[in-house]
C-alpha cells in the first residue's frame, strides 16, 4: 500500500579501497551507513518514508524488522522502530533476523495479516578490509506497508520457494565478517533452486516470464544471481538496473530497495518478478495497480533521488573507523556515557518519537515535554506534540572539536521548529564548513553512540534531503 527506501548519504568509491590497501577495490561505489546508523535507525528512516506516503488513517498493526545485522541480540530491535514511529502500544513489533533470507517475510508473511503490516528490511553489510564482501556490500533499508485497502498500489499475485541446506555463507554470532565457500559450489546449488522458485511463482501467478515487465534478481551469491537472471528468460528490457554499481548489494534490504526502485518508475498494471537467492530461492510476482499513478504525488523520495543526493567521497579510513576496523585514538575526554533505562523509558515518546508538549493555555511548545509552561507558567496544561516530521531552521551553531565522536568534529545547532519549539540537535550527513544560521534542516533517527553495550538512539538533524524542499 506504501513503500519507502532509505539509501544512506555516504558512498565509498571502491577505488579508494585499492588506493589504500594496494589491492582489492573495484569500480563504482557502495552505500555506507554513517557512523551513527545501523539496521534499526535506517529501518526507521525507510519506515518514515513509507508511512509519510501512506493513505491517511492507516494504523499499523504489526511491525516486522528483517536484518542479518541486528544491533541487539536477545532484545527485539523492531521495538525501537515501533517507538520511533510513535505506534500504538497494541501494535506488534517483531524481529525476523539473522540471515539475508529473513527479508522474505516482507512478502511472505505480512500480506496475510488482517491489520496493516509494516515490513522493514534493513542491513549493514561489510567484511574484512580488502575483501569481496566489503567491496560488493552496501547499506540500506526498505519498508513496505501491506494492507487490505482501496489504495493498494501493488499486490503479490504469485510466489515460489525452494529451500536447501548447504554451506555457502555463514557467520557465528560475534564475528565481524562472514565466511564463504568456494564460489562455483554455491552457484551449482543455487541455479536449480532458482529455477524451481521462479517457475512456481510464475505458475501460481498464471503468467509467463515473457509477460513480466520488471525483473529483480538479488541474493548473497553474485555469480549465481547473474546467471539465474539469465535463465529466467524475461525480455531484456525488463531487467531492473543493477544497483550494485551505485549502492552495492544491500543484503536483507536489497529485495525491498530494488522493488522500491521499480515501483518508483513502473506503470499501473505491470508485473514485477522478484527473485532472491539466499539459502534457497524465493520468488514473488507483484502486480501494480491504478493507485500507483496517484501514489507518486505523495511519495517522499525515490531511490534514484537518494542515490543522486548522496556524497561519494567518503575516505576509506573513515569507513574503516565507522565499521570498527580501525580503532582510533580517542580525545582526552571521558568515555561516552550510556543512557539509563528508567529515565529513557519515562521519556519514551520524547526520546524515540521526538514528541514534545504544547501548552494548551498559550500554545508554547516545549522540547522535551515540560510540565510547567516556560511562557505562561501554567502547570500541567500540556498536550503531546510530535515534531519528528517538522522541519526546522538553524538559529546558531557550533563545531565541537573537543567532544568525543566516531566522526569528529561534532556539529550541533540550535533548531527552531516550524510548528514552534526549539532544541539543540547534533547535525549529521553535513559538511561542517557549510553550516549557516538560517539553514533549513530535517530530523533523522540515529544511533548517537554505543556505550556499555547500550545503543543510544535519538534524533539528529541534517540538511534537507527529502523531496518537497525547504
Amino acid at each position, binding site marked *: 500500500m506504501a513503500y519507502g527506501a532509505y539509501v544512506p548519504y555516504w558512498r565509498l568509491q571502491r577505488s579508494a579501497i585499492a588506493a589504500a590497501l594496494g589491492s582489492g577495490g573495484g569500480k563504482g561505489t557502495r552505500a555506507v551507513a554513517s557512523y551513527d546508523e545501523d539496521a534499526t535507525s535506517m529501518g526507521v528512516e525507510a519506515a518514515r518514508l513509507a508511512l509519510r506516503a501512506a493513505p491517511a488513517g492507516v494504523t499499523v498493526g504489526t511491525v516486522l524488522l528483517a536484518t542479518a545485522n541486528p544491533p541487539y541480540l536477545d532484545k527485539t530491535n523492531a521495538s525501537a522502530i515501533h517507538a520511533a514511529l510513535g505506534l500504538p502500544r497494541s501494535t506488534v513489533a517483531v524481529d525476523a533476523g539473522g540471515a539475508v533470507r529473513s527479508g522474505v517475510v516482507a512478502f511472505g508473511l505480512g500480506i496475510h495479516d488482517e491489520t496493516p503490516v509494516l515490513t522493514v528490511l534493513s542491513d549493514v553489510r561489510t567484511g574484512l578490509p580488502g575483501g569481496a564482501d566489503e567491496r560488493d556490500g552496501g547499506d540500506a533499508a526498505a519498508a513496505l506497508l501491506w494492507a487490505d485497502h482501496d489504495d493498494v498500489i501493488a499486490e503479490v499475485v504469485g510466489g515460489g520457494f525452494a529451500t536447501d541446506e548447504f554451506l555457502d555463507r555463514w557467520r557465528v554470532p560475534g564475528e565481524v565478517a562472514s565466511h564463504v565457500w568456494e564460489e562455483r559450489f554455491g552457484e551449482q546449488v543455487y541455479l536449480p533452486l532458482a529455477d524451481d522458485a521462479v517457475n512456481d511463482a510464475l505458475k501460481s501467478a498464471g503468467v509467463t516470464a515473457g509477460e513480466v515487465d520488471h525483473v529483480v534478481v538479488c541474493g548473497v551469491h553474485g555469480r549465481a544471481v547473474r546467471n539465474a537472471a539469465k535463465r529466467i528468460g524475461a525480455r531484456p528490457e525488463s531487467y531492473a538496473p543493477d544497483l550494485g554499481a551505485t549502492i552495492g548489494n544491500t543484503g536483507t534490504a536489497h529485495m525491498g530497495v530494488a522493488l522500491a526502485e521499480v515501483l518508483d518508475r513502473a506503470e499501473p498494471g505491470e508485473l514485477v518478478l522478484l527473485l532472491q537467492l539466499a539459502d534457497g530461492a524465493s520468488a514473488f510476482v507483484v502486480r501494480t495497480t491504478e493507485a500507483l499513478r496517484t501514489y507518486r504525488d505523495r511519495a517522499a523520495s525515490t531511490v534514484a533521488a537518494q542515490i543522486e543526493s548522496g556524497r561519494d567521497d567518503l575516505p576509506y579510513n573513515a569507513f574503516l573507523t565507522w565499521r570498527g576496523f580501525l580503532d582510533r585514538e580517542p580525545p582526552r575526554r571521558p568515555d561516552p556515557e550510556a543512557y539509563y533505562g528508567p529515565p529513557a523509558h519515562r521519556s519514551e515518546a520524547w526520546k524515540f518519537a521526538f514528541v514534545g508538549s504544547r501548552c494548551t493555555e498559550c500554545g508554547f511548545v516545549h522540547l522535551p515535554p515540560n510540565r510547567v509552561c516556560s511562557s505562561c507558567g501554567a502547570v500541567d496544561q500540556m498536550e503531546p506534540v510530535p515534531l519528528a516530521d517538522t522541519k526546522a531552521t538553524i538559529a546558531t551553531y557550533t563545531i565541537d572539536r573537543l567532544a568525543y565522536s566516531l566522526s569528529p568534529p561534532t556539529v550541533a545547532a540550535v533548531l527552531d521548529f516550524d510548528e514552534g519549539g526549539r532544541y539543540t540537535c547534533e547535525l549529521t550527513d553535513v559538511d561542517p564548513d557549510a553550516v549557516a*544560521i538560517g539553514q533549513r534542516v530535517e530530523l533523522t533517527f540515529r544511533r548517537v553512540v554505543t556505550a556499555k553495550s547500550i545503543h543510544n538512539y535519538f534524533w539528529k538533524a541534517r540538511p534537507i534531503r527529502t523531496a518537497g524542499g525547504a
Partner: protein
Amino acid sequence: MSMGSHGIKDRVAIVGMGCTPFGEHWDKSTDDLLIDATQEAFGSVGLTKDDIDAYWLGTMGSGQAGLTLSRPLKLDYKPVTRVENFCATGSEAFRNACYAVASGAYDIVMAVGVEKLKDSGFSGLVGAVPPHDGTNVPLTAPAMFSLLAPAYREKYGVSEEEMKDVLTRIAWKNHFNGARNPRAQFRSEVPKEVICASPLVAGQLGIFDCSGVSDGSAAAIIVRAEDAAKYTDRPLYVKALSFAAGPAAGPIDPSYDYTTFTEVVRSAEDAYQQAGITDPRSQLAMAEVHDCFTPTELVLMEDLGFSARGHAWKDVLDGAFDLSGDLPVNPDGGLKSFGHPIGASGLRMLFECWLQLRGEAPPERRIATVGEGRSLGLTHNLGGAPGQCVSFVSIVGASPG
C-alpha cells in the same frame, strides 16, 4: 528584580583574604590547597581557625560535604556548609557566608573555594551527570559558549574576521594582565597572531579563547562592618550580592537569541540597585568578570551595562577594558590567564578587588581608576551555558557609604 531583594549594603566586610597560585599543582592535593589558602587568609588578619565561628566551602567536584574542609583543617566541630552552584560555586560560598554574618547568627565566618581539576587527566571540564535519557547533545563547554559568536555576528552585522579580532583582543588583554600577576596560571603575554592562529576547539574558538583548566583555592574572612576595624584598617565593604538562577529556557525558547545572558542582566540590575549604582561604566573602578571563553566576556560587557547593546565589540577593540582603559576588566588576568579552578574562581575575583581597591596590587598591574577616586569593584561569576545559567554579581568597596 524582586521587590523583596534588599541587599545587605555595608553591613558586612571582608577583613582578610588568601589565594593560592592557580595552575597545575601536581604536588598539591585538594587538602594542601585548602590549607594554603586558609592559612594565608588567617595570616592576613592575625587569626586562627578557632577564631572563625562558621565556614562555607565551595567546590563543584573536589569533595563532598563539610568534611572536605573540616578534615584537613582539623576544625573543632565548627559548622561547615558545602555549596555547589556550577562555576559560580565560590561566589555562592561567599554570598551565604555574608548573609550568616548579616543575620547576626555568627560574628566571624570564612568562605573558602577550592577545585582540583588537573588530577582527572581530561582536557577541559568534566561534570558528573545524574542518570539521564540520553537525549542531550553532550557538547563541551567551549562548544556551548561558542554558540554566542555566530549569533552575535548575525545580529550586529559583525564579520567573521572582525569577530576573530574582537575575541583575540579579549584573550590578548587578559594574557597581558596575567603576565603581571605572579599567582596566575599563564604569566606571559601572547602575541595576537599566536592567539588568532591557535588550534580550533569549538566554533570560532581556539585554544587561546578558553580559560585555563587549573587547581587552586581562595578564601575570605567576613565580619560585621562595625567590627571590621578590630581586624584591619582597610576592610572591603560588601555593597551588593545578587544571584539569579534562570528558568533555563534559552535552549527551548525561540525568542532567546544567544547574544545575552538574561540571568546576568537580572542579577546585575539587582546588584546595582542594592549598591546604588546608576552608571557602572563610570562608577566602578574595576570588574572581574567570568571570561570562561572570550565570547562570554564580550557579551558580559553588554549584560553588565558596561557597553550599549551591539557596541561591546567596538569598545573591546578600542581598549576600553584594558588595564589602562576607562574600566579595567579582569586586571588579574581573569579565568583566561589566572586559571579557572571552579570552586575557587568567585573568591579569586574578590581577591583582586581586595588587592586593587586597597592599593595592594603590584605596581605593574595597578589600575589607575582607583587613584582617580573610584572605589567600587564588581565581581561577576557565571555557571552553566548560554540560555541556561546561574549568575552572581557582587559589588565591593573600600569605604562605607
